[in-house]
C-alpha cells in the first residue's frame, strides 16, 4: 500500500543551527503537508505543496512528486521550534497517509 518513510525519527539541534527532515514515498503522491505538533498537542499546519518549494520564515519545504520525496528545512533553529514534525501525503481518492514523525529538540 501507500507508504511514507519519514526521517530522522529524532533530531537534536542547538539554537541557531539548522537541518532537514525528509519524507520518501513509495508511490506517486498528489500533494504533501507538513505539520508540527506543539507542546499543547495541537497540529499546526506548516506547508501544503502540490509541487515545487515554499518558504515561510526560517522554514522551507520542497516536494518532488516524480522523485517521490518531500523535505522540510529548518534554519536558525529556536527553542520554540521543538516538537514533533509530521509529513502527510495525499495519495488521491481522499486518501492521506502520514509519516511516523520526527521529534525535534532544540537546546540552548
Amino acid at each position, binding site marked *: 500500500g501507500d507508504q511514507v518513510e519519514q526521517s530522522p525519527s529524532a533530531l537534536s539541534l542547538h539554537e541557531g543551527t539548522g537541518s532537514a527532515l525528509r519524507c520518501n514515498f513509495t508511490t506517486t503522491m498528489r500533494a504533501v503537508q507538513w505539520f508540527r505538533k506543539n507542546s499543547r498537542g495541537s497540529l499546526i499546519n506548516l506547508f*501544503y505543496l502540490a509541487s515545487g518549494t515554499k518558504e515561510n520564515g526560517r522554514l522551507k519545504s520542497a516536494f518532488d512528486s516524480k522523485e517521490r520525496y518531500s523535505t522540510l528545512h529548518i534554519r536558525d533553529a529556536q527553542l520554540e521550534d521543538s516538537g514533533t514534525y509530521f509529513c502527510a501525503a495525499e495519495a488521491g481518492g481522499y486518501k492521506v497517509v502520514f509519516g*511516523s514523525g520526527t521529534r525535534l529538540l532544540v537546546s540552548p
Partner: protein
Amino acid sequence: NSKVIQTPRYLVKGQGQKAKMRCIPEKGHPVVFWYQQNKNNEFKFLINFQNQEVLQQIDMTEKRFSAECPSNSPCSLEIQSSEAGDSALYLCASSPTGGAVTEVFFGKGTRLTVV
C-alpha cells in the same frame, strides 16, 4: 491556525462502555476525517465523510464504531464497546474542497483512556 473543534478533550471509559466524541469541522469544509493516533505517533485512518456521506472507512470502524456527520450538527465518532486497545488520541480533520482532498486542518483531538 485550525478552527476544527473537538470535544471532549479527555474521555475516560471502562471496558465495554460506549465512548462518544464530537467534531465541528471548519465552516464550509465538506470533507471530514477521523484518525486514531497511538502512543508511537502513528496515524490510523478510521473514516471520512463528504458532507453527510461516508466516503471510506476501515473494517474496524465498520464493525465497532458508529460515525456520522449530520447536517447542522457536529460530526461524531462513537465506539460501541470500548476496549483497552482503543486508548489513543482521536483526531478529527476537515478539508475545504469537495471532490478531492486539499489542505487538511486538524482539531486538538480527544484523548480516550479505556480503563
